[in-house]
């Protein structure tokens, strides 16, 4: 399933809300939690991360990965949490509307 425009950002924020992760971890987490229904377009994952960083919705830091080497980790900022809440609510409204539309007869 292709991602709707802007949804990737929301998914990244949602993933990071659970704790800090590196880029691969974010991709993996999204795939895992959607049972691979949502496949991350990896070419757009990293630009999205940099963009979110610039908007100060997430921030990055260097840490030690599970491989024992240096990796860049992302974490959500308070501002990111607010944005996530707003986007989640928006998505809920949108999907509810869509569901109603699709479930009506005729």
């Amino acid at each position, binding site marked *: 399933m292709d991602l709707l425009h802007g949804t990737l950002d929301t998914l990244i924020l949602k993933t990071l809300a659970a704790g*800090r992760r*590196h*880029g*691969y971890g974010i*991709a*993996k987490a999204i795939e895992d939690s959607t049972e691979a229904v949502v496949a991350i*377009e*990896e*070419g757009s994952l*990293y*630009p999205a991360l*940099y*963009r979110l*960083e*610039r908007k*100060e919705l997430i921030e*990055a*830091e*260097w*840490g*030690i*990965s599970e*491989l024992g*080497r*240096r*990796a*860049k*980790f992302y974490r959500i900022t308070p501002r990111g949490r607010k944005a996530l809440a707003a986007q989640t609510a928006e998505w809920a409204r949108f999907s509810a509307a869509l569901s109603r539309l699709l479930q009506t007869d005729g």
Partner: protein
Amino acid sequence: MGILGRFYRKPWKVGVDAEVDEELAFHLEMRTREFVANGLSHDAARREAERRLGNQRTLRTTLAAMGARRDRHLQRTQYMSEFWQDVTFTARQFWKNPGFAAIAILTLALGIGGTTAIFSALYAVVLRPLPLREPDRLFAVGETNPAVLSPMSVGIYVDAEAGTDVFDGLAALQYANYNLADSATPERVIGAKVTANYFDVMGTAPLVGRVFTPSEDQPGADRVAVISNRLWQRRFGGAPLVGREIRLNATGYTVLGIMPASFDLTNGTEELWTPIAFTPERRRMHDEHYLSVYGRLKHGVTPQRAMAQLDAVAARVSRDFASELVATGVKFSMMPFHQQFVGDYRARLFLLMAAVAVVLLIACVNVANLLLARGSARAREIAIRTAIGAGRWRIVRQLLTESVVLGIVAAGAGVLLAYAMVRGVVAWSPPDIPRLEQARVDPLALGFAAFAAIASSILCGIAPALRIAREVQGGLNAIHGGRRGTTGGGRRDRLRAGLITAEVALAIVLLTGAGLLIRSAIALQRVDPGFDPVGVFTARFTLPEQTYADPVREAEMLRRFGEAAQQLPGVTAAAVSSYAAMGSGGGTNGLIPEGADGHDRSHFIQSILRVTTADFFPAMRTPILKGRTFTDVDRATGQRVMIINQTLAARAFPGQDPLGKRIACCEATADGGPAWKIVIGVAGDIRSRGPAVPADPEFYLPWTQVPKDAWNWFRTFYIIARTDGEPARLLSPLRQALARIDPDIALFDVRTMDQRLSGSLATARFNTLLLAMLGGIGLVLAASGIYGVVSYLVSQRTQEIGVRMALGATTTSVVGLILRQSLKPVSLGAALGLLAAVAATRLLAAQLVDVYGVSRTDPLTIALVAATLIAVALVASAVPAKRAAAIDPTTALAAE
């Protein structure tokens, strides 16, 4: 990992390219491992991982660009947030220490407000471009007499105009007074007769209608007028006027055009213009110098080239008219119009600007001192900030932010102050400063205030900030050691001593300037102007050309008015004169003393002509030193006579008795020969242009023997009446006496001689007052600064003093100790200040226009200023020293 992560923060430290490479490499590595775990071979897994990532090269470029943008953005945000932190922190600090903030802000506001106000005046008068087309090309052209620009004669103007091609026109102007009597109330209007090209040369065009054509600038065709916007609004309410007739000097003139408001260059400039319409006879007159001439240089022509051409004309005129004219050896000079327009005020205002800038500097030093004192009080706080990771630059930035916030708040207060000061300066300044009335705190002045604020806050903040930051960095001992951070303490005291030195030096420079002007003012008070101004009434009146065309009728009118004035009760002497001291008007003539070669310029003496009635000398109480005054013997048909002043006598007949000697001037005899006049008296010198200006050569002629042409030179006269009583009371009887002779003539410019005399000094006096005020402010600021520093030093030495007292030191010795400590920087500052003052007076020699009668390095002034400052410094130090001596030794020792 959280702790570790902290240390690795700020990924931009890595460099964006490395960051991108490392991140993508890690990603590929993890994906590959994932696929291997799912059963792919390593190579296949790697390929699959790379495929899923897409075009890596594009991705890297994109990410590197985004990363760079992100870093810039984040740095900016961080900077702004730190700045905001600093600002809010500063605000809280000031809120907690309102006394400190108030004193610092008021001190700076005084300096900023003062500089802004003077800048506004300087801009209005000097710097603001004239509202004329390409004003840089506009020059005043005149004859050289001997070094100053002076009016030109018609003949020479005509020759200069014909003989040059470097100007886009050479225009001539003659000031004239008009009786504008269009309705019930007649009004005297200052106007000018101008050549047809005048407006074009000045670089302006009429708002409505048109200006004169050359054909209207001819005798007989010249009953046309152009009026100024000010007159149009004031007198005619802006109603349509072009084509209508107005009555000037009882004659109808058709209004051709109205000039724009921008051409009202000052409140005092002329308000209407009529054609000058030279008659053929006038065009040939070379020895009546009354024209103001202006030239607009052609594009690309240098003043030097124009001068060369004018010199050629001068040489030709001198040669061609040598045989028939007194005015041999003509020379020209040129001056940028702007320079002539602004005059001495440029120098005066720049001097004030310099003085007020020194006040601002002293204010800065005081605030620097306050900041330094606060820095010591805050050593602990700053040490803590350093300990938790604030870098030195960060600390400096925070301290500088404080002083900039101070500066900005002070600028706000300063601008309010400047508004008030500009109003005050405009209201109280003498009326003759061109364009000063246009001074206001405009956006440019606000910009200047902002600049002054930022510059001064950085100036006063930087030294303390660097010092405090270095100290705290140098040793974090303040965090343990409590009150006294000992490292750098000595150095800091040196900085404080340096501030005292700077303050004393600046105040000395300022006070020397003020002192020189005050001494000049005193010297001017003592100058004998050559007449007794007390009890003398003066006023002017104009005889219109139309009704007084006949010289006999004119002379008769003047004689009658003089006699009528003489007979008024209380009047001891009265005279009618063509020119009075400290008045406007008056022209010069070239005089050739008997025995001198009339064709040699060096024997030719430009002298001010005054035509008077006999009682001029008793009315002014100007002594006749030799010979006699005019009497009835000096008739129109009799021997031509003149009275000369001392200066002219010394110039014309050095070492000889001038009585009975002959001088040729002012006219030629019927056969073209020199018209000799016999010197019958020598009068005392009158300082006609104010007490500061030495007397010019002057000569007096009786009304009965006015040269025929001279009636064209002046139409406005002075009535001068001396009384035992209050001179102002003479106004209404004189008006009645004048009305009985000719009801159409009005007295104007009514002033006592005292008023004229003090008016001539008003600008200098005003400048002196301002500079003295600035000097006073500087002195008070310096004193409070010294007091602050010495108080601080004393508080630092409390224990030491306690020990000394415990060991038997007397109060006197403790006071002496403190005084000696402060005397060192004070005397160093005094020495430097004196050197700077001498250098400044040299450098500013050209600006010190109001220094009169004292040397610019007047030893008395300098000694007084130095003594004053050292005395003030000692008093400012003695107060805290006394306090130190009153310390109870046990308390002081227990303090630790």
